[in-house]
C-alpha cells in the first residue's frame, strides 16, 4: 500500500480510469483522517463498499440515495453534543445532489450545519446505467435523454447548483476538477476548515458513461476546463473570489468529439447548429466568470 491511498484504499471495484474514484482519493487527501464520510447510493458507494469489504480508511456511512445531507446534519449535531470535532463530509453523486437529494441539502444548508458537501459530478446517473440528471450537459446522449431522429440528446442546460447553494447562505462554495488535483485538494482543505455549510462540486469524468478510453480521464477533464464548458472557481459568502483562467480557450469540439455521448453531433455530418449552441454555453461561462486571460469581464 502506498501512502497516497491510505484513506481511500487502493482496493475498490471502479471501472479503469474512473473519475469519481480518483476524486475520492484526492478528496481524502484534503480532509485528512479526522473525518466522517457520509455517502449516497450510487457508483461510488457500490464500488467502494461491497460487504464485508470497504475501501474507506475513515468512518463511513451510507443510508439512502437522497438523505446524505440530513444524515450528516444528525452526525454533526451528535458530535457537537459530545464535544467531538471530526469533519463531517458528504461525498455524493450528481443525481443524489442535483435531483433527489435537494430537499435534504436545502434543509441542511439553510440550518447552517458545519458540514462539507462534495458532489462528484459525472453528469448522469451512472450506477443505474447512464440516465440523465439535472447535471447532465446540453445535448449529451444518455439512456433517458437519447439522441435520435428527433432529438439531439439532453435538452436542458446544467442546473446551476453552486449558485443555488450559495443563495442558501453557504459559507464556501467551489468548483473543482479531478484534472487539477492540487487545486481540488486545497479546496477541500479550505472547505473542511471553514465553519458552516460548504459545497464543492468536482467535475469527475466517467469513462464508461461518457464513452472514452479509461486512460484519457485526466485529459478529458482538462479539456472541459480549457474549452470553458467547466469553470473552476471559488465563492466566499456568495461572492466569486477566484477563477481559474485559461490562456487560449480551445473550441468545444476538442472536448465533445472525444466522447461517445456527443458522437451524434458529428455523425453523419457535423451538426453546426448544435455545436454552435454548445460553443455559446462555453462563451457565456467565460464571460460570466472572466475565464479568458487578458479579456476584461463584461459589465
Amino acid at each position, binding site marked *: 500500500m502506498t501512502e497516497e491511498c491510505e484513506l481511500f484504499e487502493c482496493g475498490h471495484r471502479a471501472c479503469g480510469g474512473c473519475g469519481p474514484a480518483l476524486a475520492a482519493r484526492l478528496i481524502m487527501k484534503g480532509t485528512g483522517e479526522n473525518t466522517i464520510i457520509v455517502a449516497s447510493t450510487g457508483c461510488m458507494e457500490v464500488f467502494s463498499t461491497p460487504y464485508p469489504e470497504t475501501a474507506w*480508511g475513515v468512518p463511513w*456511512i451510507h443510508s439512502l440515495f437522497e*438523505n446524505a445531507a440530513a444524515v450528516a446534519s444528525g452526525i454533526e449535531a451528535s458530535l457537537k453534543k*459530545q464535544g467531538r470535532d471530526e469533519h463531517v463530509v458528504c461525498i455524493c453523486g450528481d443525481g443524489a445532489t442535483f435531483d433527489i437529494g435537494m430537499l435534504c441539502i436545502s434543509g441542511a444548508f439553510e440550518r447552517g450545519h458545519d458540514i462539507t458537501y462534495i458532489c462528484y459530478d459525472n453528469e448522469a446517473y451512472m450506477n443505474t446505467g447512464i440516465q440523465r440528471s439535472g447535471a447532465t450537459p446540453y445535448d449529451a446522449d444518455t439512456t433517458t435523454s437519447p439522441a435520435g431522429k428527433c432529438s439531439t440528446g439532453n435538452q436542458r442546460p446544467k442546473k446551476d447548483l453552486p449558485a443555488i447553494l450559495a443563495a442558501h447562505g453557504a459559507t464556501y462554495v467551489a468548483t473543482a476538477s479531478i484534472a487539477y488535483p492540487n487545486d481540488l485538494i486545497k479546496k477541500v482543505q479550505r472547505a473542511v476548515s471553514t465553519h458552516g455549510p460548504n459545497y464543492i462540486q468536482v467535475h469527475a469524468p466517467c469513462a464508461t458513461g461518457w464513452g472514452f478510453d479509461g486512460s484519457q480521464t485526466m485529459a478529458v477533464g482538462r479539456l472541459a476546463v480549457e474549452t470553458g464548458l467547466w469553470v473552476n472557481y471559488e465563492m466566499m459568502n456568495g461572492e466569486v473570489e477566484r477563477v481559474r483562467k485559461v490562456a487560449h480557450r480551445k473550441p468545444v469540439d476538442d472536448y465533445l468529439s472525444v466522447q461517445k455521448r456527443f458522437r451524434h453531433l458529428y455523425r453523419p455530418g457535423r451538426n453546426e447548429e448544435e455545436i454552435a449552441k454548445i460553443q455559446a454555453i462555453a462563451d457565456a461561462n467565460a464571460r460570466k466568470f472572466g475565464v479568458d486571460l487578458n479579456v476584461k469581464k463584461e459589465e
Partner: protein
Amino acid sequence: MMEILEGSHAVAEAVRLCRPQVVAAYPITPQTHIVEALASMVADCKLDAEYICVESEFSALSACLGASAAGSRVYSATTSQGLALMFEVCFNVAGMRQPVIMTIANRALGAPLNIWNDQQDSISLRDSGWLQFYAEDNQEATDLHFIAYKVAEDHRILLPAMVCFDGFILTHTYEPVDMPSQEAIDAFLPPYKPVTILDAKKPMSLGMYATPDYYMEFRYETDQAQKRAKEVFAEVGAEFAAKFGRDYSGLVEGYRLEDADMAFIALGSICGTVREAIDEMRAEGKKVGLLKIRSFRPFPSEEIRATLSGVSKVAVLDKNISLGQKGAVALEVRDALYGSGIDVKGYILALGGRDVRQADIKAIADLLEKGEGDQFFGLRTEVL
C-alpha cells in the same frame, strides 16, 4: 409525582427524563404538541439536547439515524403522512440497527385527508423491523418511553422502537399521570452505550451494500433480535414494575379473562371502552373478557395462545385494514391461534376517527355470538 397533563405533554416530559442528546422532528397534527413542548424545554435549558429543526419528516428520521450512528441517544415523533414520508428511512434505521425511539400519535392516512385517529400509519410499517408498542392511556404512553429506550438500547436487541398512542383520544386528553423523578429514571435508564459508532479513531463502514451472499443473513439477524425483544421487554417491564409499581411485563394484558368464553382483542385506547363494556356485559351475565396487545412487534403469538386457551370465540378490533384482505391484527391473531379451534372474527372500526362507544362493543359481542364477523363495523351504508 401525580400531575394532570395533556397526553402530548406527558410524553414530552417522559422524553425529557430519558435525556435524549439529539431531537429531530417535524410538526404534524396530532403530534405537534410533543415537539413544541420539547423545543421549549430546550429553549429553557430544561433539556440539554441538540434540537434539529428539520425541513421534513424525511430529514427528521435521517438526522436521527446519523446522530444515533455517531453515538447519541436520539428522539423523534410523527404520525400519518409524516410516517409515510419516512418509510424508506424506517427500513434503513432498523437494518442499520440504530435504537432510535419515535412516538407515533396514531392518525389515519389520506386520501381523503383526515387528521383523526386510527392505527393505519404505524401498522403499515409493521414489516420494517421497528419494535411497536401501543399505549392504552397516557400513563402507559409515558411509561412505555422509559421501557422502549431500555429495550431498544439493550445490546441483545439494538432495534428502533415506535411508542404508539392514539391521536387526539390520548394526545389531546388531560389525565392524571404519575411522572417519575429524574433520579428514578436515571437509575432505571443509564446513558446510551453504543456497541459501534462512527469515530475517526476507530474507522468502520456502516450501511454498505450487501450482495445475495450476505443480505439474507442481515434480515435473519434483525428478525432474531425482534424475537429476543419479547424476553427483554418482559425483563425490563418487570424491573419497571419493581421500581415504579406499574406492571408492563406482559406483551399482552388480560382483563376478566379467567372464566371467559368470549374475548375481545385490541390495541391502544379502545381497550378502555372495551373494559367498560365488558363490565356491563358481565353484569348481564355474559362471560366476556379482553386481551390487550401491548407489543405488536414483536408479536406475542405464544402469549396470546396461552392466555386464550379457555376461550371459544374471539373478536379482534382493528383500527386499520389491509385493503383487499382484513384487519392486520385479526390476521395475525388467527395465525397465532391456528389449530386451536378458537373461532376468530375480525371487525374493522373507528377508521378516520369514527367514534366507538360501549354500545358498539356490545353489538360486536352479539355479532360474534351469531358467527357474523370479518366485516366493517359501523358503516354508514346510507352514504355509500
